[in-house]
């Protein structure tokens, strides 16, 4: 096996995205280093002289510290990047606050202050950001849209939430819309309308049972929520359409971050296929945490190993690395086959977690083909 399958332009392609696109979305399964990659791409944008902003979601604590994010900060703030920024370049960061973002959306769409307040005070509403799957994804896209339309930034990089499935965020707006349009509760809140008969016996029985099972107060709150929400769905629908258009825009790039494992590869392929259906495509693929490859055991070492525990340990160690590296390479080749023409960037397994800007420099060095180290010394 040779390294010839790697398009030589992988790193340049990624640097090109950081240098020219207005939106970069990092997607992929959980636990593969998406947040780190997103931060490194935004930092690269700053290095190239752009005003960059990274939207992070639930970063590991030390990476958050490195970006100066001690807590949820829905307003971006400047990261001190020292001499890393190019002329005019800067890096801002924010950690998504789903609840506050949703509150802003409600206020913006409400016809009156009373309507907004009725929703914000509703018990069911207050549970949404914590309990309804897809809300975090939707709000991430909402924040992206807001930052993008304010035009304070040349580049916005979004890290997507750790979901069971990388696709969840593409479906999130629809999931929320479906929630807001739930038919059973909409019918229930307008019992005097013609819809009454359409409710049907089964639904009525269900609602009665629901009252018994979860309590009448819950049903009352739910009905109050849908009543208060009346008239706002169109605003949400319009915005969802705009967000969808932004995601499909030529200035938006999707970068899939994956790891060289079977399940992650399957998910990356699935994601790319789904993206193609929404007429977007994966513009670069980052395979993170690759095992270092040191080649096979040299014959002279293999022959000498049985005679010496120390040499045997050295040989075993090389064998271990080689076995994993070979398999991982096979997974990457499979990705390359299934996503022909997509530039692939390999990032090795680093010996410690990224927890400061030097660590981001190191990742950036691999992402953008500058070798392991490129930050200023010290």
């Amino acid at each position, binding site marked *: 096996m040779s390294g010839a399958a790697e398009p030589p332009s992988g790193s340049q392609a990624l640097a090109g995205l950081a240098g020219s696109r207005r939106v970069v979305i990092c997607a992929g*399964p*959980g*636990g593969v280093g998406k947040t780190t990659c997103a931060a490194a791409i935004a930092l690269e944008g700053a290095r190239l002289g752009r005003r960059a902003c990274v939207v992070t979601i639930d970063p*590991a*604590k*030390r990476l958050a510290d490195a970006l100066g994010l001690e807590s949820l900060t829905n307003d971006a703030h400047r990261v001190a990047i020292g001499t890393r920024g190019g002329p005019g370049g800067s890096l801002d960061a924010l950690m998504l606050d789903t609840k506050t973002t949703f509150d802003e959306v409600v206020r913006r769409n409400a016809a009156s202050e009373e309507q907004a307040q009725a929703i914000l005070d509703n018990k*069911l509403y207050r*549970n*949404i950001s*914590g*309990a*309804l*799957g897809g809300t975090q994804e939707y709000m991430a896209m909402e924040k992206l849209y807001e930052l993008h339309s304010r035009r304070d930034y040349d580049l916005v990089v979004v890290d997507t939430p*750790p979901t*069971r499935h990388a696709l969840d965020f593409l479906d999130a707006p629809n*999931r929320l819309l*479906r*929630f807001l349009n*739930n*038919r059973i*509760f909409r019918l229930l809140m307008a019992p005097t309308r013609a819809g009454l008969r359409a409710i049907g016996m*089964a*639904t009525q*029985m*269900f609602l009665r*049972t629901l009252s*018994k*099972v*979860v*309590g009448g107060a*819950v049903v009352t*709150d*739910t009905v109050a929520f849908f009543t208060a929400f009346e008239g706002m769905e169109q605003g949400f629908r319009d915005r969802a359409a705009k967000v969808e258009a932004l995601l499909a825009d030529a200035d938006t790039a999707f970068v899939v971050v994956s790891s*060289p*494992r079977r*399940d992650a590869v399957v998910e990356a392929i699935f994601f790319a296929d789904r993206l193609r259906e929404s007429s977007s495509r994966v513009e670069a693929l980052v395979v993170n945490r690759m095992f*270092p490859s*040191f080649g096979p055991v*040299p*014959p*002279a*070492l293999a*022959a000498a190993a049985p005679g010496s*525990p*120390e*040499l045997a*340990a*050295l040989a075993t*160690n*090389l064998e*271990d*690395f080689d*076995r*994993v590296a070979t*398999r*991982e390479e096979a*997974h990457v080749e499979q990705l390359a086959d299934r996503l022909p023409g997509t530039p692939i960037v390999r990032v090795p397994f680093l*010996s*410690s*977690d990224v927890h400061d800007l030097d660590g981001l420099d190191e990742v950036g060095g691999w992402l953008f083909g500058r070798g392991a180290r490129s930050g200023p010394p010290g």
Partner: protein
Amino acid sequence: MDPKAFRPPARVTIVAGKGGVGKTTVSAALAYLAAASGFRVLIVEVEGKSGLPTLFDRPDALSYEEAVMLEPGRAGPGSAELRARTLTPDDALVEYLEDRGMRRISRRLSSTGTLDVIATAVPGIKDILVLGKVKQIENQIAAGAAGAPDCIVVDAPAAGHAVSFLSSAYGLMEAAAVGPIRAQAADVVAMLSDPDRCQVMLVTLPEETPVNEAVDTAFHLEDRAGVKLSPIVVNGLWPRLDLPAAAPADLPQGRLSDAERAAVEGAADFRRRRQAVQEEQLARLAEALPLSQLRLPYLFTTELGLEEVRALAGELAQQLAGVSG
């Protein structure tokens, strides 16, 4: 390894940990060990997405119906059957409603997203439905019901979610003063707080972020879910090699080229640094958490199947014998 010496610590073992630490693999290994020791075991997967069948060299996805992963005798002489199924909140709600004579509407509810509305109105209800179902199977075990397994292994949701998953019962007991949900929650609390009935096995990796998260999860689980923690599994440990600092150029059977020596020494250097990180994280974990550690080796492969699960089960058997002995 003497699997006959193994007894499941409780009727239900809930395996929990951050995404990517190998929860499903550990669930499979623990279940394999139970089956090899003659206990009929059922693995319950709660997220509707799992690589579990692959771990037993089975091609098909799991479903709500129990599927055989290992036939009796497959894990050695005298070994028992191992089955697996999914148990997602949607499934559990449908079953809950069907049990109460609402079969027709139950299917439609999941397809129209009404479950989302209910689950948002009553946070924790999904978890309580799933745990309620687990408790129902556990009751069947206690009663020695026909067709019931001897023990259950639950492949729990990713940590963070695991805490809310397991503390939902307390939350609902506070929120709902009366009614079937409160009764259900009370039953689940009774199960979770009885160490003979239920224990939680945390899984982590010897790396900084997973260790931090495991420590947080452990304290939250004890505080908020009142559940007993079994020994913690540290997964993916690189087996320790005593590597010399340098590779000699001249060997009895020939010379190593400079490039070969650089590769040999580079690999050794990487391994030593990795080992140092592991030692440091194991020590940190031991200091922060007063739990015994079960250490599972990294198997230097990217795909795991039955052979690997068997090897890990053997490791678990050996170490559990040491812990409880």
